C-alpha cells in the first residue's frame, strides 16, 4: 500500500514537473493570444531558441544555467519584439489564415536557422546540481526539479504582479478585454502588442531553459510537439485565461504521466487530447473561458 502511494506521489511529481514546462509555454501563448488575438503555431520554436541560448551560454561560460534563464528570457523579449514588428503586425486583422501560414513559415525558418547555427544533432546539458537529491516527504527528489518548480512559481508570481500592479500590466489587461476601448482611452495598443509578444516569448524561453537544465535532450525540432500541447492547454483552460493556462498545464502534465504509467507510454500524448475533447464537449469555452472569447 505504502509502495503504491509512493509510486502515485512520484508520478504526480513528474506530472508537476512536466506541467511546469507546459504552464510557462501555454501562459506565454495565452498572453499573446489574449492581447493580440493571433494564432502563433511557431510558439514552440521560441522554447527551442531559449533552450539553445541557455545551452550555448552555459557551454561557453560555464555560468549556472539557472542564472542564464534571465539572459535567455531577455534575449527572447528582443527576438519576440522583432518577430512581432516585422511579421505579425503587418498582417494583424487580415484573417486567421494569414496568421496560421505565417506562423507555419516561421516554424521552418526558425528550425532550419537553428540547425544551421547549432547543427541538428540532439544535445544535452548537465546541471551543476546533477546528482543531488532532496527528501520531500516519502520521496527522494533531485534538487533540480525542486528548483524548476520554484522558478516556475516565481515567474508566475512576477507575471501576476506585473499584470495586476503595474501600469503597463493594467494596459495589457485592458487591451486584452477590449482593444478598441483601450485605444479610445489613449493606450498605445501597438506598444502593448510588442510587449505582450516579447513577454510571451520570454516565458517560452524560460520553459526552454527549464527543459534543458532538467537534462532532457534538445534539438532544433523539439518545439513542435510542446507547441501543439500548449494550444491544447489554452483551449482546455479557456482562450485568453492565464489561470486557465496554469490549471490546464498542470492537468495536462499529471494526466500524461498518469496515462503513461497506467496505460503505457504510447497514450502519453493521446490522453491530453482526449481530455481536451471531453472538456470542450461539456464546456465549449474551456475550463476558465468566457463566452465570446
Amino acid at each position: 500500500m505504502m509502495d503504491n502511494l509512493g509510486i502515485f506521489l512520484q508520478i504526480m511529481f513528474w506530472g508537476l514537473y512536466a506541467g511546469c514546462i507546459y504552464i510557462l509555454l501555454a501562459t506565454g501563448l495565452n498572453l499573446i493570444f489574449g492581447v493580440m488575438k493571433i494564432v502563433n503555431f511557431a510558439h514552440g520554436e521560441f522554447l527551442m531558441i531559449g533552450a539553445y541560448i541557455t545551452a550555448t551560454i552555459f557551454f561557453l561560460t560555464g555560468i549556472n544555467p539557472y542564472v542564464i534563464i534571465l539572459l535567455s528570457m531577455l534575449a527572447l523579449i528582443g527576438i519576440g519584439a522583432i518577430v512581432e514588428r516585422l511579421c505579425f503586425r503587418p498582417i494583424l486583422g487580415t484573417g486567421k489564415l494569414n496568421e496560421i501560414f505565417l506562423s507555419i513559415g516561421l516554424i521552418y525558418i526558425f528550425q532550419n536557422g537553428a540547425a544551421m547555427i547549432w547543427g541538428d544533432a540532439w544535445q544535452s546539458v548537465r546541471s551543476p546540481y546533477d546528482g543531488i537529491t532532496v527528501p520531500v516527504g516519502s520521496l527522494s527528489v533531485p534538487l533540480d526539479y525542486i528548483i524548476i518548480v520554484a522558478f516556475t512559481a516565481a515567474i508566475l508570481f512576477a507575471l501576476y504582479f506585473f499584470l495586476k500592479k503595474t501600469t503597463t500590466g493594467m494596459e495589457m489587461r485592458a487591451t486584452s478585454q477590449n482593444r478598441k476601448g483601450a485605444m479610445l482611452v489613449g493606450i498605445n495598443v501597438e506598444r502593448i502588442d510588442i510587449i505582450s509578444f516579447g513577454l510571451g516569448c520570454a516565458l517560452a524561453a524560460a520553459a526552454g531553459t527549464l527543459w534543458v537544465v532538467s537534462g532532457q535532450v534538445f534539438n532544433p525540432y523539439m518545439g513542435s510537439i510542446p507547441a501543439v500541447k500548449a494550444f491544447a492547454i489554452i483551449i482546455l483552460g479557456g482562450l485568453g485565461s492565464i489561470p486557465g493556462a496554469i490549471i490546464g498545464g498542470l492537468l495536462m502534465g499529471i494526466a500524461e504521466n498518469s496515462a503513461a504509467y497506467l496505460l503505457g507510454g504510447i497514450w502519453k500524448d493521446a490522453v491530453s487530447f482526449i481530455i481536451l475533447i471531453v472538456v470542450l464537449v461539456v464546456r465549449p469555452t474551456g475550463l476558465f473561458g468566457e463566452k465570446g472569447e
Partner: protein
Amino acid sequence: MKYPVLFIVALLVLATLFAGCTQQAATQQQTTSASQGTIKIGVIVSLTGPASNVGNNMWQSAQVAADKINADGGVTLKDGSKAQIKLIVGDDESTQQGGQKAATKLITDDKVDILVGGYSSAVTSAYEQTIAEYKVPYIVTGASSPIITHRTDIDTSYVFHHCPTTDTYGQYTTSFIDQVIRSAIAKKSGFSADRPLRLALMYQDTAFGKGVQTAVNNTITKEKLNIQLVSQQSFKMGESDFRTQLTAIKAANPDAVYIAAFPNEGAPIITQARRDIGLNTIFLNVENNDNAQFYKDLGQYGEGAIIESRFSPYTAPAGAVADAQNAFKQAYFTKFGTYPDMMGASTYEGVFIAAKAIGNAGTTDKATVRQALVNLKMPQVIEAMKDQTISFSPDFRESTFDLWMEQLSFNQTLGETRPAIVWPDNLKTTAFALPSWYTAGST
C-alpha cells in the same frame, strides 16, 4: 471566357507532353549511366529529425566508402571499363512521409542505379512499396526489424538486409543475460541458482522496439530460460521524458533493464533512471547505440552499462577486422573530425556491396544487379561476418554477423565511458563485472 480555359488546358497538355519527353530522356540516360563512367548510388538516411545524428553518420560513412572505391580506380564493368561512384543522398527526415519522398525522388528524379541506407524500420518499411514498384535493388544497412525482408504484403525481392535483425540481437542479448549476468548477480547477491532473473524491457513503440520485445519474449519461451519479465514499458519514438515509465520499472524491482531505443532516447533513459529515479541496475542497449554522441551524453551514468555491438567508435575485437576497422575510423576522422558509429560502418559496407554487385553484374541493369546480390560472396570488409564472408541468405536475403557484448566503464579524464568487449570468450578483452553500486531486484 472559354478561351482562357482552352489556353490552360493546352498548357497542361504541353506540360504533360514535356514531362513525358523528359521522363523518356531520363530513362535512356539511366541505362547508359554506367557505360558513361558513373554509377549512381542513392543513400537514404535521416539527415534531419530525431534520428539525424545516426543518419549523418551513415551518410558520411557512405562518402568515405565512395572516396576509397573511387581512389582505388572505381568499379570494373563487364567490358573492362571503369566507372566512378556518385552518391546522391535522400533525407527521410526521420519520418515515413519523408522516407517516401526521398525514395521516390532518388528513383524517379535522380535515376539511381541502386539504393543503400535506411535506419528506422518504421520509416523504411513505409517506402518499401516504392522499391517494389520500381524494382530498384536496395541494401538496407540500418533498419533492423525482420519485417523489412520477411513481410509478404509486398514484393521485397529487391531488398537485401545488411544488418542484424531485432530477432538476431534480441536473442543474442537475452542469451548473454542468461549466461553471464545471471551468474554474476547470483554470486554478488547470494541468490540461489534457480532464482529467475528479473528483467525489465523499455522499448520504442515502433517495429524496431516491438521487434526486440518479441525476440526477448520468444527467446525466453523457446529456450526455456529462467528469466522473468517483470515490466515491459513502451515509449513513442523521439520521446525525451521517460521518468514515469522508469518509475514503473523501478517498482517492479528488476535485476537488469533491456532498452530498445535510438541513441537520443537511450542516453536520457539511462541518465534519468540513475539520476532521477535511483534505478541502480545494469542497462543493456541495442547495437545502434554504439555511437560517439551516446557515450558523450551518458557521462558517468553509463558506468556498467552493456551494448550489444559489431562495430564501435572506441574499441575493436582482436583479429582480422581490427586493422580494417581502424583504417576506416582514421579515414572518417580525417574527413569529418569525428568517429563513425555502427550504422555508419554497415552503410560503409553497403556502398562496397553495391559496387561489388554492380561490378559482378557488369551492368547497372537492375534485375541483373539484383541477381548479382543474390549470388554475392565477397570477403568481409570491416565488420566480422560469419565465415568471414558477406553473402545473403536465400530465404530472406539477410547477411550474418558475428556479434559481441561490450561493457562501459567511466574514464575520469575524458568525462565519458569507454567500452571493452566482455563476451563471447573468443573476442573478449576483459570480464563482465557488476559495478559496486549495483542493486539487484527483490528475491
